[in-house]
């Protein structure tokens, strides 16, 4: 069930009266629980939109409703709003407040008046989710840009927000770290957090998003299903964007083969299922498992499944199985599904919370002619 979290009504904002508005009559609804992508060229107004959602910018015209009521710009009102809405900025240095990593991650929750024990537990969890526990007592200046980015995300996680806004969360991160961030975004969603991501990585976000909001020169150009947006190349160019590669290839090969472009594959496994037309598909043996049991489960399961490819999904299981030989350590759902399309069986270990997500993706793949089996391993 969708709930309306934010509603922007004809919102206009300019940094000062002498320059053109960065947001020029934005009307936009942000629904709870949907993976929302915010797209646009540099300067389209994405960051300004985010600052408006957290009450940093107050529009000169129009209003912003949060949960049905206009944002309360008093000190208390903004504190409440910001305890619900966390933002990870593109440049981590803009939101680093303390000298040590763990202090910095604790800064937000402490400011909300949460007691120290609880804050400590949150910090520990957030650091581990971002794989930076070993840096807890390191000064931030000594960390690389990618590591500081992780600290900034950990700081937002520790707030336990209802809405997580991530501005270019994967920029500057190496490929594995980017995948971890996307996994975390999915975990947040499964925990009931609404996630907004703005990114220039068109391919990454095309796979991820349920809904795409496209901004162009201070206006909302499009809001809805990405496949509809990309069907108009001129409009895409005009917005400073490009067509995702899977979208482009699907269009090309579908046209040549005389197939319908729909359903639109969004991932490698969906694309190969659509055009590879597998006669026989494999099984993905699913092992949702808690961190503490993961290693033992792996050893016992793999006794029976010797020789099969394995994947891990989720920060806890990945950490627990770091010493095991796992073929797909990142992006494992798509990788295991790809194997299934090839007709091979795989074993997928994941944090139990992702169960819904794995099943959803398997169901999507079914629409492309690959009815892979996902079988729970007892």
């Amino acid at each position, binding site marked *: 069930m969708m709930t309306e979290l934010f509603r922007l009504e004809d919102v206009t904002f300019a940094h000062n009266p002498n320059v053109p508005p960065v947001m020029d009559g934005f009307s936009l609804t942000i629904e709870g629980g949907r993976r929302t992508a915010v797209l646009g060229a540099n300067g389209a107004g994405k960051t300004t939109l985010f600052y408006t959602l957290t009450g940093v910018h107050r529009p000169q015209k129009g209003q912003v409703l949060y949960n049905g009521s206009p944002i309360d710009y008093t000190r208390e009102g903004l504190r409440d709003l910001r305890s619900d809405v966390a933002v990870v900025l593109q440049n981590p240095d803009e939101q680093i407040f303390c000298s040590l990593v763990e202090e910095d991650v604790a800064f937000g929750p402490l400011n909300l008046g949460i007691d120290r024990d609880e804050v400590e537990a949150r910090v520990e969890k957030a650091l581990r989710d971002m794989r930076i526990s070993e840096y807890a007592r390191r000064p931030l200046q000594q960390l690389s840009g990618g590591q500081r980015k992780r600290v900034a995300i950990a700081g937002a996680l520790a707030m336990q927000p209802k809405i997580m806004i991530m501005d270019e969360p994967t920029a500057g991160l190496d*490929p594995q770290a980017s995948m971890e961030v996307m996994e975390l975004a999915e975990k947040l969603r499964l925990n009931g957090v609404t996630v907004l991501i703005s990114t220039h990585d068109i391919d990454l976000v095309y796979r991820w998003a349920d809904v795409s909001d496209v901004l162009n020169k201070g206006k909302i150009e499009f809001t809805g299903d990405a496949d509809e947006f990309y069907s108009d190349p001129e409009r895409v160019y005009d917005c400073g964007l490009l067509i995702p*590669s899977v979208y482009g*290839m699907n269009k090309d090969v579908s046209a*040549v083969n005389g197939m319908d472009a729909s359903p639109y594959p969004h991932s490698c496994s969906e694309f*190969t299922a659509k055009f*590879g037309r597998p006669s026989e598909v494999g099984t993905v043996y699913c092992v949702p498992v808690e961190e503490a049991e993961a290693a033992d489960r792996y050893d016992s399961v793999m006794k029976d499944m010797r020789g099969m490819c394995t994947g891990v999904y989720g920060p806890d299981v990945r950490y627990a199985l770091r010493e095991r030989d796992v073929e797909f350590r990142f992006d494992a759902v798509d990788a295991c599904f790809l194997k299934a399309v090839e*007709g091979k069986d795989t074993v997928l270990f994941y944090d139990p919370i992702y169960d819904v997500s794995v099943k959803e993706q398997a169901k999507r793949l079914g629409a492309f002619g690959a009815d892979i089996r996902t079988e729970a391993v007892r």
Partner: protein
Amino acid sequence: MSDSLLRTEKVTFSYSRKGAKVLDEMDIDIPVGKKTAILGSNGAGKSTLFSVLNALNKPASGKVYYKDAPMSYSHSGKIRMRSEVSILFQNPNEMMFKPYVEQDVAYGPENMKLPKEEVEERVQEALFAVGMEAYRKSPIMKLSYGQRKRVTLAGVLAMRPSVLIMDEPTAGLDPQMAYEVMEIAEQLNSSGVTVIMSSHDTDLVYSWADEIRVLNSSKCVYSGIPEPFYEDYQLVQKAGLLMPSVYRMNRTFANLGKCELEPYPHTQSQLSVKISDRCATDFGVMNVVKVDKDTDIPALLASEGLEGLPIGIYGMSARTARNKTEMSVDFMYNGPENCIRKCLSGEDSVLLCDPIMVDKAVSSADFINGNGYGKIDVRTV
């Protein structure tokens, strides 16, 4: 003796005497004239390696060779290396030295103590190459991030380097600007410049690079063409990397018997042609039209009978000539690839191309024509 332009031999470097080794007896070589990608996770030592390759940092031990001669760290030696090997840093704001565009671009050549006329000529040429001629007198403060990136690139070009190193050139750029930067690098490579790039964009690198070098834990753990590296999932994992999606999908299609594993496709159109059902005879013709910056494009197209076809654009002179007309272009970005895609769908296409890029544009049909996937006629006009 070798085809390597830059080479390190057991190079060790750390930022302080007791600090961790960022480079640890690293051996790496950069082939001349090619496009080489340096891959590795955050903190693998990529940026430090770059600083060693242009004598910005001197290794604690080991040797760096440029054109087979050991690098000199004398003042004049360093100045020379910095003009031979130019680095485009990730953040343009760190490379801006002067308040106005033309001053900033002139900064490097002036430091090389070149005569005034030569500096002027280089500034003009570099600003043209990045499409920023019109902003010559603009204050840098007023430019957008993407424009600043182009100005810093112009500053690098004005040094007329033999080697261009780009550290995460597309980070923070929107997709179109990212393509523009990549096209400029392609243009330089066409004119003989050796290009080195680091990037976290796995798919971009795979479509771009002739060769890759993978850094992990302060060492170079892989040198060569990409495929053998991506075969080895343990090595890929350890290096903090992922397999390119085109590579993964090609492998799955091969395992399904839909196509052979080799030749490996590196671009969308290459994968598409491998897996589509089209019989090989009815591809369109790609017309590669050489365009100088003063060419009257509509007149040329009319005289060649090429009006009304989908048009792509490639290279700076073609962009400049096009900006003088009102004509619309279908593919402002990734011109050759998009024109090939049109041909695969059976339509003819026109690629307006900088003369220096013609060979590159023509060769984009090689994968299809050379491997029995059919024939795209490429007509050079």
